[in-house]
């Protein structure tokens, strides 16, 4: 069976959607972080697939993916550090805890 | 630089120098003397310069100089937008500048004992006058607008810090309403700018060039005229945008009320004429009826409202609504006589309202009330102020020999000369204000000055001090001068209107 571009794209979009859903519904900050990773990875798939199927002659999408992965890693690291900070402050990783600043 | 050869620029430089001088003074101890000295020097220099300007203008015109604007100089400022520091004066600006100088002079003396923070007070005061003078000497849309706003914003602090009563509310309301007006104005100016020249020629901000090119498409005029007219009309206390005026005046300190009613409100009328009407004659003709109606309402409405007020400043504020309404009303009549009358009315209203506010301030400073129910028989106690008040009142209700009469008559006769029945009916309605004016003026004079002394504590009060006498006498002399020798002023003013009237008639 020949795999066409949509067969990659649909899962990627679903993944992105899952990430968004996860972000919006999870209470745990770590889980939210994971959801964000899902979203970023969905984008990566997009790039790779577009490059591979639509514009096979060049490497731009691939390169972009590499950088995006690196950025995502940096983001995760930073996010974890901050989550630890928050945990130290409120002894919890519940996202609803950090809503003191409002209005 | 060439611009410094033009005496007009010194109308801005002198207040700025005064600002600098004031900045060096201190409030403490004997600093107050230095502050007064600097302020008086600045104000006197302005009066002297204004006198020279009038003299220069009159002799130039007598010598047959026919240019629309005298003392022109252009200095490029913002090249990309063709914004220049363009200076020039015609008869209208000249008398307005003279008026401003006189009121600044009187205002300095009226705020002689300003307390607290005299230095800051005078700083803002002179910043305000910088804006006023800058506005009158400029003929570039952008610089005019800039100076216009420079003149507005000091009001906030002047009222807020040195005012009385519900001052923060009034100051905020006044500032926001006026800034609302200037927001409309800014849009109008931008619109004018983009249509200032015919297709292909460079855009310009110079009002002379715009008027000459007359390139604003008619459809655009229909939008831009109301924007600019209402924009300036807010400051000219046009119904229904006048409500900043009673509260603002009631809360403002004496000199600020003087300057505001005396000069700042004139910016509105002047701007309506110089920008809205001069630049957009077509729309002016088309839309005049709306604004005639509004200003006509202002005239009568203000007068009736003044009849039942009990606060001296409210009475005067409403009376200003009425009188300033008459200015805009006359400007919309599009003939030389009525427009000349409008400028005379600006002069007259400026001087006599300043006089009124000065006197009210002085009375308030003694009695600590402005409620006419709580005062009475002050003529026995402070005859100088009482006589001054009567004179101001007489000027206001149009006694021949004082300025109000001359202005109102020129307006009425001029307005009635318009062929349009609608305008005539409005004129007749407007004339009724002279009776209502008499009613409220005499009411307040009767209650305040005449009759028995209401409050026995008032018997200990003193009459005017020398600086108060100087301040009011200056204004009284000017009011009488316009009233007695009107033709001198008419000659200066009326020449400026002929090209405008011609353009307006051509656009009809």
């Amino acid at each position, binding site marked *: 069976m020949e795999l066409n571009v949509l067969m990659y794209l649909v899962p990627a979009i679903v993944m992105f959607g899952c990430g968004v859903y996860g972000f919006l519904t999870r209470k745990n900050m770590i889980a939210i972080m994971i959801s964000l990773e899902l979203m970023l990875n969905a984008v990566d798939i997009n790039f790779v697939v577009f490059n591979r199927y639509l514009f096979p002659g060049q490497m731009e999408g691939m390169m972009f993916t590499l950088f995006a992965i690196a950025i995502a890693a940096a983001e995760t690291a930073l996010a974890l550090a901050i989550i630890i900070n928050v945990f130290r402050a409120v002894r919890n990783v519940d996202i609803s805890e950090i809503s003191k600043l409002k*209005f | 630089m060439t611009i410094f050869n033009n005496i007009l620029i010194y109308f801005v430089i002198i207040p700025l120098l005064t600002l600098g001088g004031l900045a060096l003074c201190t409030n403490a101890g004997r600093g107050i003397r230095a502050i007064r000295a600097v302020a008086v020097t600045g104000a006197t220099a302005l009066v002297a310069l204004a006198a020279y300007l009038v003299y220069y203008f009159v002799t130039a015109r007598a010598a047959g100089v026919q240019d629309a604007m005298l003392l022109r100089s252009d200095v490029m400022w913002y090249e990309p937008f063709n914004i220049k520091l363009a200076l020039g004066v015609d008869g209208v600006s000249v008398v307005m500048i003279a008026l401003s100088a006189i009121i600044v002079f009187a205002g300095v003396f009226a705020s002689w004992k300003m307390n607290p923070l005299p230095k800051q007070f005078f700083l803002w005061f002179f910043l305000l006058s910088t804006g006023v003078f800058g506005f009158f000497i400029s003929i570039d849309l*952008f610089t005019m607008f800039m100076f216009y706003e420079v003149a507005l914003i000091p009001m906030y602090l002047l009222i807020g810090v040195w005012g009385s009563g519900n001052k923060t509310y009034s100051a905020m309301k006044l500032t926001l309403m006026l800034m609302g007006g200037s927001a409309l104005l800014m*849009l109008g100016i931008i619109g004018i700018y983009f249509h200032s020249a015919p297709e292909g020629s460079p855009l310009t901000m110079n009002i002379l060039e715009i008027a000459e090119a007359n390139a604003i498409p008619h459809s655009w005029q229909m939008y831009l005229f109301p924007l600019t007219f209402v924009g300036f009309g807010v400051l000219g206390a046009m119904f229904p945008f006048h409500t900043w005026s009673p509260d603002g005046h009631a809360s403002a300190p004496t000199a600020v009320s003087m300057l505001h009613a005396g000069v700042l409100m004139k910016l509105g009328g002047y701007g309506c004429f110089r920008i809205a009407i001069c630049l957009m004659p077509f729309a002016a003709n088309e839309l005049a009826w709306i604004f005639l109606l509004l200003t006509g309402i202002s005239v009568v409405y203000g007068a009736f409202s003044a009849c039942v007020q009990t606060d001296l400043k409210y009475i005067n504020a409403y009376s200003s609504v009425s009188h300033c309404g008459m200015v805009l009303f006359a400007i919309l009549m599009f003939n030389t006589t009525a427009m000349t009358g409008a400028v005379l009315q600006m002069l007259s209203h400026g001087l006599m309202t300043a006089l009124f506010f000065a006197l009210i301030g002085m009375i308030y400073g003694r009695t600590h009330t402005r409620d006419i129910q709580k005062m009475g028989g002050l003529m026995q106690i402070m005859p100088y102020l009482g006589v001054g008040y009567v004179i101001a009142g007489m000027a206001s209700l149009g006694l021949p020999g004082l300025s109000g009469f001359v202005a109102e008559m020129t307006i009425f006769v001029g307005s009635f000369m318009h062929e349009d029945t609608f305008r005539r009916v409005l004129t007749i309605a407007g004339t009724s204000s002279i009776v209502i004016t008499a009613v409220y003026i005499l009411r307040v004079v009767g209650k305040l000055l005449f009759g028995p002394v209401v409050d026995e504590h008032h018997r200990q009060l003193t009459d005017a001090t020398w600086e108060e006498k100087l301040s009011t006498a200056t204004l009284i002399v000017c009011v009488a001068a316009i009233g007695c020798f009107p033709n001198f002023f008419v000659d200066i003013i009326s020449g400026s209107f002929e090209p405008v009237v011609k353009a307006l008639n051509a656009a009809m």
Partner: protein
Amino acid sequence: MDYSQFLMMPQEIGLLTVFLLVFLYDTFMPERSQRALPAFTAIIFGLFTALTMCPCLAEGGQAFGGMFEANGATWAIKLILSVGTFLVLLMATKWSNSEFISVRRGEFYELLLLTLFGMFLMVSARHFLLFVIGLETASLPIAALAAFEKRRYESHEAAAKYLFTAIFSSAILLMGISLVYGIGGTLYFNELAMAVALDRSALLITALAFVIAGVGFKLSLVPFHLWTADVYQGAPTAVTAYLSVISKGAAAFSFLIILAQVFGAAYSDVWQWMLYALIILTITIGNLFAMRQRNLKRFLAFSSISQAGYIMLGVIAGNAVGMASLMFYVLVYVFSNLAAFGVIMAVERESGKTTIDDYNGLFRTNPWLAFTMMLAMFSLGGIPPFAGFFSKFFIFVGACQTGSVAIYVLVFIALLNTIISLYYYLLVVKAMFISQDDCVVPAFKSACGERLAMVLCVLGIVFIGLASCLYAGLNEASAAAFPAF
């Protein structure tokens, strides 16, 4: 590889040099001279800024196969950002030597300079990859900076909120870019412009919306703005100051470039309509929130949201005048907002107070601070003769140059909003000059760096508008840069 192309990026190299010097100083200098680090940073950064003022750098050119472009306009905006950063550095000297901060002050400066570097890249990027790298470099360290005051709970909350929303928005942005890539097959701005010019598909419009949302996050356009106030309030004031002006300026500029260059002529009607909606929302909502704020930092956050709306008016013009006005606006905004933050920082450091009510009667005790704050408020409110008036006027003129009636309506709404904004700016002035209070902030002497920064800001506020040469320069630069699009 042709290494000479690095010569095309003198400002970036200069900045990296500064960064390295600071890093070396921080790492290798003995503990006792560490207290001089802030001053050291400020001085060498000031030197760097002064050096890059040399107009010869305006020449520019391209590097990395066209991914990077320097021209007069990028030079100018980078210079503006540098000046702003310099002012922030000056203001932060005293704060960064304070207790609990001083142990990590080196990191503060290094991260700050790194974000600036990211912005430089972002501004000069002509390729989405470089743009994304720049954007992330500019935004991620901010989260760390926001969390800088470990003793304050708000600092953590701010950082967490910032980071989560930032990552989410970058995911959206990347999604948008990936879709653009899928349609155009390239990530070069100029090539994309040609590739997408004929395509009016739903996909591309979605992509455009996502890109706008992604960049709108940085600019804090409504409805992508919700993080702003919380982060501004929670972050250390120096960071807030930096965040409010510098990163906003850079984002606005690159936003203009992306919209004008990638979605250029063919799509201008689409994104202009998007921006109409966003601008109206941004200005209005920002103002409505700002009206009710009592905390000054939060207040300035909302004020900066509505200011972003005005900045967008320069973007919407999408032409040289718009760009010049935008840069001028940013320049003026840098001085005005930093003046306000300088006062807030000084007062907060001295007394720990940040609400408007705390400022009641400030004029009596600290006249100069009150005066500075007042000028800042007037300038932000667009009152002449202060610089804010000029920038506002020019940005309106720039917007109206497109000539459509819709834009006049938009400008009209924006102008009506200036009244509301004036209202709340005057509230601050009122507190300082008019209101009386029993517990006034006592008289104090502000730190040397703060004072210097504030003096510079005041000079800027007063003279930028009056000196027309600045605007003329910007105009020239952007006019020269624009045919390149």
